[in-house]
């Protein structure tokens, strides 16, 4: 398969799979803690961070841009927390306004940069919709360098992470430092986002966090299996999406991956044993027939 022999394709495919796996894994916690849209808000909020990083460093260096993205996303998360905790504004309105305002500010910075005489700033637009085709080997190493420690932390503190995701009050009563772990869990979403932004872009990032986890949940009742399955779905969807995008003209990788992943989710929702809607329907018919 061309995908793995050709150097460029290999980078793109491997990069996409890496992102799919990491977002799937880390996104599971966001979904379970009902912070699915936090990823959406934070990925939109990353835009001004990226623009500012470019403004400051003057170059499209992946590390500094990712750091810019991460800082902006974290600021947005802290801001969200402050708003929801101290005012009567509920989380949905806080998310929507944070998303729009930060992103709007990012657009302001982008438009300012566009008037600057730098050729490299054209790449910043790729953060909007992702540009998987532009992934180079250095980007892959950056992803691993950021992604693996996040994964490792989750695995090391697995019991605490699981407990806090399920019952933070009980965890607090045991004396577990819940606040610190909540920061960790928000931090890992930031990690997933900064890694994934390059492939699928701002608008579609939330799908990479949510869809694999929702799909995986339908097939298993154990958290341990769910996160692995989510990683698997994410990687597989990325592989297939990357492959399809090589088949023709005008097939952007990011949207293709999201579509494939959404298809997996639809199939899971319908066909998974026990939870699947089709089985539910059949069971119901059986009961009615029995009466």
């Amino acid at each position, binding site marked *: 398969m061309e995908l793995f022999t050709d150097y460029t394709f290999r980078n793109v495919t491997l990069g996409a799979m890496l992102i799919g796996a990491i977002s799937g894994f880390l996104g599971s916690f966001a979904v379970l803690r009902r912070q699915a849209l936090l990823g959406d808000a934070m990925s939109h909020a990353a835009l001004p961070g990226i623009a500012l990083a470019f403004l400051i460093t003057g170059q499209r260096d992946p590390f500094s841009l990712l750091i810019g993205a991460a800082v902006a996303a974290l600021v947005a998360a802290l801001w969200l927390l402050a708003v929801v905790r101290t005012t009567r504004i509920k989380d949905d*309105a806080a998310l929507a306004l944070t998303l*729009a305002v930060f992103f709007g500010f990012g657009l*302001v910075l982008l438009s300012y940069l566009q008037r600057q005489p730098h050729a490299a700033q054209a790449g910043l637009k790729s953060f909007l919709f992702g540009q998987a085709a532009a992934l180079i080997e250095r980007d892959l190493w950056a992803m691993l360098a950021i992604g693996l420690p996040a994964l490792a932390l989750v695995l090391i503190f697995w019991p605490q992470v699981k407990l806090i995701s399920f019952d933070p009050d009980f965890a607090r009563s045991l004396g577990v430092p819940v606040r610190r772990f909540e920061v960790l869990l928000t931090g890992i979403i930031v990690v997933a986002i900064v890694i994934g932004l390059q492939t699928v872009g701002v608008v579609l990032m939330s*799908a990479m966090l*949510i869809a694999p986890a929702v799909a995986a949940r339908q097939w298993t009742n154990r958290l341990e299996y769910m996160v692995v399955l989510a990683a698997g779905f994410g990687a597989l969807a990325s592989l297939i999406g990357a492959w399809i995008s090589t088949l023709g003209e005008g097939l952007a990788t990011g949207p293709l991956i999201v*579509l494939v992943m959404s298809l997996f989710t639809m199939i899971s929702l319908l066909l998974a044993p026990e939870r699947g809607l089709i089985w539910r329907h059949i069971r119901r018919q059986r009961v009615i027939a029995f009466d």
Partner: protein
Amino acid sequence: MSPQLEVQLIAVIIAAACTLPGVFLVLRRMAMLSDAISHTVLLGIVLAYLISGNLSSPLLFAGAVAMGVLTVWLVELMSGSRLMHEDAAIGLVFPALFSLAVLLISRFAGNVHLDTDSVLLGELAFAPFDRIELFGLSLPRALVVGSGTLMLNLILLVLFYKELKLATFDPALATTLGFAPALIHYGLMTSVSLTAVTAFDAVGSILVIALMVAPPATAYLLTDRLPRMILLSVAIGIASALSGYWLARWFDVSIAGTMATMTGIAFLLAFLFAPRRGIVAQRRQQQINRERFALQMLTLHLLNHEGTRDANVECHPRHLIEELHWPAAFAGAIVRQAEQHGLVQRRGDMLVLTEQGRLFAAEASVR
């Protein structure tokens, strides 16, 4: 009218049109649906274009609005299945539909002016160049369509005000009274859809979200009354749009982005400085409460131990500090305050309640 004036007029009209349904989105905790709808309308436009083959067909408009409503229906379908929560449902539906739209555009409509960038960004500055004839006048299309939407939203608001209010605050009661909350809900969503489609050509989906959510959220921090909230939202939306326009012209940056930023600044100002609900006011109130509780605690304790055998131990400031677990500095400040307010007096080493202090304590204990 000069192009600049036209652009500002369009901005004002669109801002007003967006904030009206936005108020109810915020109150009904459905703000993120504005995010979903403003992205998925693109798919409606694309599909309608592919069917009709032409960019100015009214089918595009209808298709976009329909897609917006379909989005809401899909989200509810998904979360109603109980296989996922509502937020996950939103995060599943709109990226999928949006991806489909992007792919269809690049595959089948790549040569057409359906620029995906403009979906997000819009381009207000170009609005004066897209004109239509109306009553013999040449007007920007965005102005005409925007005014129509604003008019429609106003009419809907006035006609259905009490139903909206009831369905938002007490859906159960609304049902028993015969107002179908589901109808109101989908009516609202159609309005949101319509507004998003109208607006995003000019200002892009991000500004649509900003205008629908931020001014109402800001107003929500400033008032408790629905009519006032609506008026404030519109006013803040218009102010943000105009100030955004001028700042964008001054700095020569994205107009839509600046407007969105200004809605954020308005919210930030309210967040910090709103009377009663702003951070500054809250901190002050917390401080006042802390002191009031402490004064009550102090006088109550003095009252309880007054004239008892161990009074000369219990009523000593240091003992009180121990028993009430107050840090020394705080205790000192409270005792001073109590003296200032004439609630206690020092008699030698001890603290003694005055008549006023006794009354204060008695009141406190009845609460």
